[in-house]
């Protein structure tokens, strides 16, 4: 891979800014911290890939953006999700409905079950259009036909009258994308859009997403655990582990120079063609062992709240910490117990417990406005 210019930032505002998001689920067995302090940024027209194993909080982060977490078991512990100058977590249901589908759309993993089996394709595509864009039915039909033909479906007018079970998996995923994009959202959350599809259809769908991204000037949050998909589609990669972002860099940097032990493990566990007959490497257990952290990146937590904590969490400086504020205590605790993203070299953030090599003020919120050259997107 070629050397990448990391100073391509134009100083533009990020489209989506997930700030210290924490989501918990109250289950019968206690509290699960599904997401625990996630920071993400997506710039306009950028593709951010969120990578990680199942249950690491990828989908929860994406669904929180649309407040789709079922809230009796789930609970938004803290954090903000900035989109368009508004905090998505503070919006009420009505305002949220205007955002859903209109500004931010989402496509799901399983095309077989993400279309309602009792309605025709047309009913489903047009319901969203009639809701957000126009009240006129003929106009809506026209938009729906256009949306279907945009995603490469032949005879779109005919397909509008068909039921989901009459379509193949790839077709259904195309319909899902058409539905999601019918209202021209500025951000598409793609939750493992190709996992359930076979490899040829996968390639078609990803190619389609890239094409539509350029046509619609849209940002994509691509959630996946397929590193091949990441390598071919992402501009910036966030590696997630146990509810946190552990590494954050542009796609070339991540693949060329992975730093976090978990990212290492992830790459090691990919089977290699013509490799040996040894067992595949597996990722280490839950808490990363200090001993495997890269040289110079270890930090022993102490009992009292160190001043570094305030650098890790700028929110601390805005809080009243004079009289044993519980929030301050909590955040200090978090800062000490959990590794925090540090910019260990320009454009490359790694979660670790040490401050060495971290550039002050740019630690917590990794911002990387990088887009791969369009040539490299071609397969």
């Amino acid at each position: 891979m070629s050397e990448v210019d990391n100073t391509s930032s134009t100083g533009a505002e990020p489209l989506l800014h997930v700030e210290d998001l924490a989501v918990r689920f109250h289950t019968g067995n206690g509290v699960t911290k599904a997401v625990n302090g996630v920071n993400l940024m997506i710039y306009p027209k950028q593709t951010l890939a969120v990578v990680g194993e199942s249950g690491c909080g990828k989908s929860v982060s994406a669904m929180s953006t649309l407040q789709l977490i079922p809230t009796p078991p789930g609970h938004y512990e803290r954090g903000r999700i900035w989109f368009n100058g508004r905090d998505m977590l503070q919006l009420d249901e009505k305002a949220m409905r205007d955002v859903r589908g209109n500004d931010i759309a989402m496509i799901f993993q399983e095309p077989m079950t993400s279309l309602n089996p009792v309605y025709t394709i047309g009913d489903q595509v047009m319901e969203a259009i009639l809701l957000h864009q126009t009240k006129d039915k003929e106009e809506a039909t026209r938009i729906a036909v256009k949306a279907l033909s945009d995603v490469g479906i032949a005879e779109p007018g005919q397909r509008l009258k068909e039921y989901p079970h009459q379509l193949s998996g790839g077709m259904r995923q195309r319909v899902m994308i058409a539905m999601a994009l019918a209202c021209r959202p500025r951000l598409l959350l793609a939750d493992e859009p190709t996992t359930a599809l076979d490899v040829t259809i996968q390639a078609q769908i990803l190619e389609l997403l890239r094409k539509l991204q350029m046509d619609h000037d849209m940002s994509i949050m691509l959630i996946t655990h397929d590193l091949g998909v990441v390598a071919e589609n992402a501009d910036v990669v966030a590696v997630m582990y146990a509810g946190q972002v552990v590494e954050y860099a542009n796609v070339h940097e991540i693949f060329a120079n992975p730093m976090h032990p978990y990212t290492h493990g992830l790459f090691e566990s990919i089977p290699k063609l013509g490799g040996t007959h040894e067992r595949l490497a597996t990722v280490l257990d839950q808490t990363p062992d200090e001993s495997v952290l890269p040289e110079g990146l270890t930090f022993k937590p102490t009992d009292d709240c160190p001043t570094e904590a305030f650098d890790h969490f700028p929110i601390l400086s805005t809080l009243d910490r004079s009289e044993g504020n519980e929030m301050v205590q909590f955040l200090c605790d978090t800062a000490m117990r959990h590794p925090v993203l540090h910019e260990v070299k320009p454009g490359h953030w790694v979660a670790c417990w040490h401050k060495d090599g971290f550039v002050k003020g740019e630690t917590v919120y990794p911002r990387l406005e990088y887009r791969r050259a369009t040539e490299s997107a071609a397969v």
Partner: protein
Amino acid sequence: MIDGASLDPGHKGVIDAETKRTRKRRTYIGEVVAETVARTGAKVGLAWIGVVAFCALFAPLLANSHPLLYKSGGEVSSPMLKYLTATDVILLIQGFGLVGSLMFWRASLWRRVLGVIWLGAATAPFVLWKTIVNLGESDYAGLYVTLLVLACLLSIGVAVWIATASRTKVNGYTILLAILALGLSVFFLARPIDPPLNVSGGLQVYRVMEQKGEIEWAVLAPVPFSSNDRQNELKDTANLPPGPRHPLGTDGHGADMLSGMIYSCRISLAVGFVATSIAMTIGLLIGGFMGYFVGKIDLLGMRIVEIVEAIPQLYLLLIGIAALGRNLYLMMALIGFFSWPSYARYIRAEFLKLRKQDFVQSAKACGLPLRSVLFRHMLPNGVAPVLVAASFGTASAILLEAFISFLGLGPVDTTSWGQLLNFAVSGSGGFHWWIAIYPGMAIFLTVFSYNLIGEALRDAIDPHLKKAAQL
């Protein structure tokens, strides 16, 4: 290479071939109905329910002491038409509407059924116009007339609206209007203000006229007795065994059994449908909210379900009738308002499963409002098991009504199968087998039919759910 790659003709061809072989259009509900009807049990059940419904709708044409048409004193007239009650008129209109819609209206089954119900609801205020206006001296006459005018305007308005909007989409307003019109019609139907059914001199007047030779010719109903024609001109007509004059014999009052059986179909059907509709509406709403919102609402809802389930329905009915009097509508309402918990449980379980489904999440992610997510996307996918429960529920509602009527606590002015059964053992101690067998068979067959339909529906749904939704 990036743009247009997925739109090239080669791709189109592949996609085309992919789906062409599975191109067959049928809705999920349509498929369930088709599969249900294909089963023998359901065919038998539907055939019997069809017979019962036919008798209920066309009863005045099938069994009537009033001749359908006759000539007397040089004048041709139709006493049958003249003495129709409001209920008769509405049911006949619905009956002809049903036949017409089956023969001439190409629409989905749902639209046909809804259309026929709507037809009855819409005609009710017009049919009852005269009786209401005659209530001049009543304290509430003004209120009645106002409501009647409202109901008439409403039904005209909706009819015009449906006629003008070419492809009317069923939305909240349509449903609200239909419910309003239906409610008003039921309100009017429930008032005991039908014109008196008996002609002066009693229903035997035509037979007396015929004996005197005053009738030149007459077209009689197939069964020339009304259910309340006690044949006062004759002696000893009570408890006659089946014979040429009365194919099923007569009951304890001397009324024809066959005629009574035909008119009883109405009560049976009405109790089943109305009670089940009430129960299902409440059950779907409460169960739906419980299953969708879970948490505290679910906890509270399930406690209410348990409380209502704990009330024994039979005693509740007996107490209700003792306190408020013998009334068919009270009976329907009581059965309906206290049998919803099972529907609520079913729909709750379905919604608990459905709320995590991708298509529900995707509907929410499209920004659809709650009512669309709940009732448009979740309900049709979860309603199938409830329909099975509903067919069993209808059967049990009919049984309950029959039991209450058998105890002599049924509706006052109308016959029902349970009431006829009551005559089987007369006060003088005799047992009359024909009075026990025929109504008993009718009750048995109806309950059995609903159970058969329910079972067929369950069989039709079971494999299908797995296949269609990949649940």
